[in-house]
């Protein structure tokens, strides 16, 4: 791995739900500026890991560090304030709101004015809100949704909804972005576009990205480093080439027999 210091580090993270150990001894270290992947068969615990990192679950053991700062057990909104943003496996937009409003809601976490200011017509608040609106518009333009800013978000086509969800996450000004199956339900052309898009936002927004994905073409195409999770345990890590040829990974995905026959 590169010499960059890790943006995100997890140390021996374990979570149990009753008697079930969903994730155990989860250790990853994500270098700054990289795009990395977390893969594994269904039910391996990938989304659980995301939920631990973003504060939705509190790990039974272990710690999560963001740029060396311990963020274990912080509530989700604090984690977001610290600079981690995420998207969801099944898109979760604010469906009654417009595209622009969705992105502005993302920007709220960096807003300084208080709730009682707008009714009292405080000038600094009005100014901040105008800036926020302009920034949200600029962000939408940069992800190619500028023309749809006034549309209700539920009326958007699927691919655009995915992109809007990422734009909304970007509006929180994250250092670290978690994408949960960004290519789910996309055709090959759309996933190709998505790969370019992910690479572009990494440079444009100076991000580090961790993604969960089942589409191997996408994973192998964008990730510089991959972790493989099976039954809550990390079974392999390495660059795409190492992962592709790792017998343990093939076994986890295709079963033991396949490896023997191979």
């Amino acid at each position, binding site marked *: 791995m590169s010499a960059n210091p890790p943006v995100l580090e997890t140390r021996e993270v374990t979570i149990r739900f009753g008697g079930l150990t969903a994730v155990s001894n989860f250790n990853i270290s994500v270098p700054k500026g990289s795009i990395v992947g977390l893969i594994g068969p269904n039910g391996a615990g990938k989304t659980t890991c995301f939920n631990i990192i973003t504060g939705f679950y509190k790990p039974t053991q272990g710690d999560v560090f963001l740029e060396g700062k311990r963020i274990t057990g912080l509530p989700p909104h604090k984690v977001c304030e610290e600079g981690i943003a995420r998207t969801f496996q099944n898109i979760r937009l604010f469906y009654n709101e417009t595209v622009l409003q969705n992105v502005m809601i993302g920007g709220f*976490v960096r807003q300084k004015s208080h709730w009682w200011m707008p009714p009292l017509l405080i000038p600094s608040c009005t100014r901040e809100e105008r800036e*926020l609106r302009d920034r949200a518009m600029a962000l939408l333009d940069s992800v190619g949704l500028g023309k749809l800013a006034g549309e209700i978000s539920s009326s958007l086509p699927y691919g655009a909804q995915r992109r809007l969800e990422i734009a909304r996450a970007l509006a929180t000004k994250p250092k670290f972005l978690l994408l949960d199956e960004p290519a789910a339900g996309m055709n090959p052309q759309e996933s190709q576009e998505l790969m370019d898009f992910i690479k572009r936002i990494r440079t444009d927004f100076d991000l580090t990205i961790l993604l969960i994905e089942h589409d191997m073409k996408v994973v192998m195409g964008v990730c510089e480093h991959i972790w493989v999770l099976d039954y809550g345990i990390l079974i392999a890590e390495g660059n795409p080439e190492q992962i592709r040829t790792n017998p343990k990974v093939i076994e986890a995905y295709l079963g033991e027999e396949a490896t023997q026959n191979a």
Partner: protein
Amino acid sequence: MKTPNKSRDLTLTTAAVGLLLVFLWWANGHLDNYKIQVLNLIAINSILALSLNLIYGFTGMFSLGHAGFMAIGAYVSSLLILPPVQKEMIYILQPLIWPFSVLQAPFFIAVLAGGFAAALLGLIIAIPVLRLGGDYLGIATLGFAEIIRVVFTNLTPITNGALGLKGIPNYANIWWNYGWCLLTLFFLIRLINSNFGNVLKAIRDDEVAARAMGINTFKYRVVSFSIGAFFAGIGGALMASLITTIDPKMFSFLLTFNVLMIVVAGGLGSLTGSIIGSAVITVLLEWLRFVENPIDIGSFHLDGIPGMRMVIFSLLLILIILFRREGIMGMREFSWDSLINRFSRGGEAR
């Protein structure tokens, strides 16, 4: 998006408010007391509906505690505007205890105090109760409103118990009521159209996503609930001064139900809807009084049945829920653009 028409909208809004004031001035001089009372009720019901809409329609918290907040506002403000002589006269079971027996305040301050007292209580109960969601929240807040009512019935040295307060000065004329109504409307329009309003709607639409976006959903649910309680208290205070007599029985669940009906009929998540709903339902409630009087249809004679209009209203609510769940306005709001577009046929939709 809207910038080019901002000054035009401001002019039109000012004109509309001016027109309303001219109408109220005319009404005040020319209409009989009964019609003025209905106009007053429309204003107060608007304040109540707007405040419940903030809690239920915009933030998605199903609250049935409105009558409780109204009671707080009504009692606090009434105690502040009742003259000491009147207080001595009505507290016949037990005398009013000290600070309340001498406290006096001008009407505006008294109403404001009623609002703040309700908001404070809203804040206190919000912290435990808002950990619940959905129907559970509805039941908990309903229970809270009932507790307030029972406490007020038994807190005789302060509330005069079941006898209630009589002879409250009738300050709440048409100007006070519409003044407060416009103030509430202005406050809520500014709030809802700000990014904070977007955040409330985000909490309503998807709380999990809102938390992931860095929104402290619990805090803002408490804030929204308390603002709603504040305006419910204002509405209660005005109502008390308008009808000059209050007692704990008045603040039963039926009062909350009336407000809820207005909000649902007008449209959850539409301020415009709440205003229209208040006007329509208040007028209908009065107009429908004829069904409770004896009716002759040809040779057929019907005796008046008291309470019949509430039956009709319950039916109406069921019909709304069955056939037009989004209410009159849905989540849409009135805007000058849409009105102008409607009249100039060439204009594109929206």
